[in-house]
Each structure stands twice: as structure tokens, then as C-alpha cells.
């Protein structure tokens, strides 16, 4: 009864999500695999695996290492390219009642622009411009760590996009609000954060890093407190809607990010422990909102009472 009255829907830069739980880019492919475990229409949105203008094979294996309640990955943007996505994957995604968010990485600002044009035309709901992927040596890292580049990429993306552009921030910076402001100045419609923290694990017997790339991106529960802090900082620094992520695996984790200022959350690594994690996060969030007597989950957003 009570749940019936609870409105789960949220809005992210003008795009309506039927609930605030999105799946994080790179952890969900293009939806086919986890679509075997639950109906994709149950999700608020899907951030697709990061796309590049041309197909990429990604980094050499091993690409995965486990760490204390976290994991490192160095997948490195393996993807079939934006054209193949539009041809082979988007029609499948479009069969479901779910917001499709294309995640893109470019080597140059122009590449972001070209991809935005193609994807807008093909009909995605939103574009997430990844300026933070720490795995690609050229470009990737620099955009996310230098305000002027972040602004430039954002401007270029916005100029060519007919759908909202969300800029994805890296946590590997001294001051994330600086980059957030730059993206806002560049015209971003929303921001998403956090991408992975850079980390390393060494096999003490072979003395080799477990990842062939030596270092990789840390995600999972271990990073949750960093994500909460950064979402809060960014929420205080810019007026844009935020998609919060980093270590979310329960409704309570998600509620923390919403309270800190996010309009919606993304679930990534938690999927690997439990394919139905996003649905459990959604239900947990609904329970918390109901217990607090809210009529809409979106009332949590920014509800933090800092000391």
C-alpha cells in the first residue's frame, strides 16, 4: 500500500528515469548479458559500455584484480565503435522501457563532437562524456584533470549533441570542484561521478603487478566514502544535476549519495557480486524513503544536514 504511494521517478537533466537506479558504464555491456537475469525495463537507465569513434581491442589481459572490498580493472575501452553500437546494440536496448545513456571517450574534442552527433541522431536519451577513464594513455586522463580541457570537450560535445550531455568526472584530482565548474562552464547538462580511483596490486610471489597494464581503476564498496564526499563537494559547487556512483551496493549506500546531492545513482561493481544488485538497491532505497514517510524518492536529493 505504502509503496504504491511512493514516487520513484527522478529527472536527470530533463530526462525522466522511472527510478533513480542506473547501471554504471562498463559494468553492464550493452545490456544483453544481465538482461538474462532481469527485465531491463526495471532499471531507471543504462549507461552503456564506453564507446569510441573507432573500434578498440582494449588492453592486454589480465585486466581484473581483486582488492579489499574493491577491484581493479584495466579493460581500457574495448568496444565495437560508435557505428557498430548504433547498428547492432541500440535497437536491442530500445526494445526496453529504459533510458539509454551512451558513454563516450574521444582522443580529441572533435571526436566527442562527431560521436555526439551520431548518437543524437540515432536516438539515445543522453550522452555521458567520459573525460576520466584512467586507462587510456593518450587523452583520457588529461581531459579529466585539466579544467580548460574539460571545458573544451564539454563545449564541443554540447555543440554537436541534440540530447543532454552529462560529463563524467575523475576522482584522481586535487580538487574535483574545479573540474566540475569547468564542465558546467562548458555547458554540461549534468555531471556523473566518480569514475575509478587509480590503484595497483602486486603478486608478491611473481613480483608482477596482477594487471598487465600495471595499474588500473579501483571500484566497489571500498571507494564509497570517497564518492559520497565528492558528490557532496560537487553539489555545493555547481547547480547541475548529478549522477552519483562509486561503491553502491545497498539502498543505504544509494541514499547517502542522494542525500549528498545526487539526483540518481549508478550501480557498477556490485553487479559482479550479485546480478540483481541494481534492483535490490532500488527496493532498498524505496524502503528507506517509505520509512522516512516521503512521497517521492527524489525528496532525498540534497537532503543532507551538514554540521
Amino acid at each position: 500500500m505504502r509503496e504504491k504511494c511512493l514516487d520513484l521517478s527522478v529527472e536527470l537533466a530533463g530526462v525522466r528515469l522511472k527510478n533513480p537506479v542506473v547501471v554504471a558504464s562498463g559494468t553492464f555491456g550493452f545490456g544483453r548479458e544481465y538482461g538474462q537475469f532481469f527485465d531491463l525495463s526495471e532499471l531507471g537507465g543504462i549507461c552503456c559500455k564506453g564507446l569510441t569513434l573507432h573500434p578498440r581491442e582494449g588492453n592486454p589481459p589480465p585486466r581484473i584484480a581483486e582488492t579489499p572490498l574493491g577491484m581493479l580493472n584495466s579493460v581500457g575501452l574495448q568496444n565495437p565503435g560508435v557505428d557498430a553500437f548504433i547498428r547492432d546494440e541500440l535497437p536491442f536496448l530500445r526494445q526496453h522501457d529504459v533510458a539509454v545513456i551512451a558513454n563516450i571517450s574521444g582522443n580529441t574534442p572533435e571526436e566527442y563532437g562527431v560521436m555526439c552527433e551520431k548518437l543524437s541522431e540515432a536516438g539515445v536519451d543522453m550522452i555521458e562524456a567520459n573525460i576520466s577513464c584512467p586507462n587510456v594513455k593518450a587523452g583520457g586522463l588529461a581531459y579529466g584533470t585539466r579544467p580548460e580541457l574539460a571545458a573544451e570537450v564539454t563545449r564541443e560535445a554540447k555543440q554537436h549533441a541534440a540530447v543532454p550531455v552529462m560529463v563524467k568526472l575523475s576522482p584522481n584530482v586535487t580538487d574535483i570542484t574545479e573540474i566540475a565548474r569547468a564542465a558546467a562552464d562548458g555547458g554540461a547538462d549534468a555531471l556523473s561521478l566518480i569514475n575509478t580511483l587509480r590503484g595497483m596490486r602486486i603478486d608478491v610471489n611473481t613480483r608482477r603487478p596482477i594487471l598487465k597494464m600495471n595499474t588500473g581503476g579501483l571500484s566497489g564498496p571500498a571507494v564509497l566514502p570517497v564518492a559520497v564526499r565528492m558528490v557532496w563537494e560537487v553539489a555545493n559547487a555547481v547547480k547541475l544535476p548529478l549522477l552519483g556512483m562509486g561503491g553502491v551496493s545497498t539502498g543505504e549506500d544509494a541514499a547517502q549519495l542522494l542525500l549528498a546531492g545526487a539526483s540518481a545513482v549508478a550501480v557498477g561493481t556490485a553487479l559482479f557480486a550479485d546480478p540483481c544488485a541494481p534492483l535490490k538497491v532500488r527496493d532498498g532505497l524505496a524502503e528507506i524513503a517509505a520509512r522516512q514517510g516521503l512521497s517521492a524518492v527524489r525528496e532525498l536529493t540534497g537532503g543532507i544536514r551538514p554540521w
Partner: protein
Amino acid sequence: MPIQQICTVASMTQLDAATWWMVLEAGKLVEQHGLTGGQFIHIKCGDDQLLRRPISVAIAGWDEPEDLATLIFEVRGEGTRWLSQRKEGDKLDVLGPLGNGFDVSREGHYLLVGGGIGVPPLMEYGESLSWPRTAVLGFRTKDKAFPAVVSRFEEHCEKTYLCTDDGTLGRHGFVDGQVRETLAQDKSFTQVLACGPKPMLKSVAAVAAEFGVPCQVSMEERMACGVGACLGCAIRMKDGSMKHVCKDGPVFNAEEVDWDA
């Protein structure tokens, strides 16, 4: 199509200091989803381990009751240690069936080649194939040569050759020597099915290629999702492309694999 299922541990048997024989009541996984030997399941090993652990199925659906699945695993770290401490009646959260098994759809004469903990994933092929087969099983030393596993090959295969690295049991040396001899003596083999450490697979593949016998190999790579979504478990193919152990494998055509990657 893979599902998530809670399975009950039907029995646990310790094979040697580090190796366990676990039987699961796998229910629908076997009965409706056709879990077979050579495929794997992805197991949640307690709350301390964020990622699941992939373990191959040795044999499934052939014992009574028909929903049993046998896993044989070695304790290598925290996850497999946790798994080894399970007791009869405990519940396991697993994803499966995952990946392909060996392709044995065509009539032929099969040579099964296993090394160490790579022997069990061949068990179902040793027992249940309707075509003639021979097994070459390699172990580090006699104490690591699981008699309970080996005897099942010996019972069902035309011949079962044993090799140990240190000569304490069977032929002294790696399996590839025996494989070469066997393929040289008997030209009727139509397929080699191999599972074991990568260096072994590489040399078995080379020997098979030498004799022009198609060879299937079961590969390992570190996994996150286990279902093809994260692209974590990539291995490089000869043509430069990436394939994924969890979705495109774990069994690959040996000729396609880039053995020098």
C-alpha cells in the same frame, strides 16, 4: 541461459591436502539449463570476497539424483579456502551454466589431455562420451594425482596414460611427450580436448597441430562478471581480436588462440 541459483552442498570430500570434491544439488541448473562438464559456475565465496570465483563442472546430470553437479577445486587463496570449509547442507549462491563445454557433437576418436586441476573438467568427457576416447593425465607428483578422479577415467576410457613431472607415478615427464607418442602410434584420433595450465595447453596444441589433429583447449583468465558484460576476462586471438573466457570460452579452438600473448 544462465540463472542465479542457491544450491545446496550435497557432499564434500577432501582429495588431498589442498583439493576438494564438492557435490552440489544444482536443481534447475542441470535439469532445465543443461549444465554440463567443461562449463563453469561462478560462485559467491562469502561476504569478504567481492568477486565470485569461477569453478568448472567436472560432471553434471549423470549421477543419481540427476541434478547433482560435481566440482573439484584446489585451495589457492581466500575464496577457495572459504569454499573448502563448506559442509553438507550449506547453501551456495552460484551463477550458471556459464561458458561452453568441449564440442563433442561429431563422431570421432577423442584424446583427452588433462593437467593437474585441469583433469576434472574432462571427467564427463571421459565417462559419458558415446565415442571412443583415450586419456593422458598429468600431475606434478603421485600425491597430487587424485586416485578418485583417475579411476573414473581408467574405468571408462580405452586407455588412460598417467604422467608425473617427477616420475613418481606413470611416465616421467610432461603430458606432451605422451601425447606425441599416442598421436604418432594411432592416427585415428580426430580431436584433442585439453585442460590444464597454459604452458601445457600451448605445447599440447603444438603437438596436435603437428599431427594435424584439431585441438580444443579450456582457458583461464581472471574474471569479474562471468557473464560477458565487463570484458574483464579477455584473451587475445591470433587475428588480434579479443575473446572472452566467460562467454566465448572457456573452451577455444587451439588454432585461434594467440599463444604468445
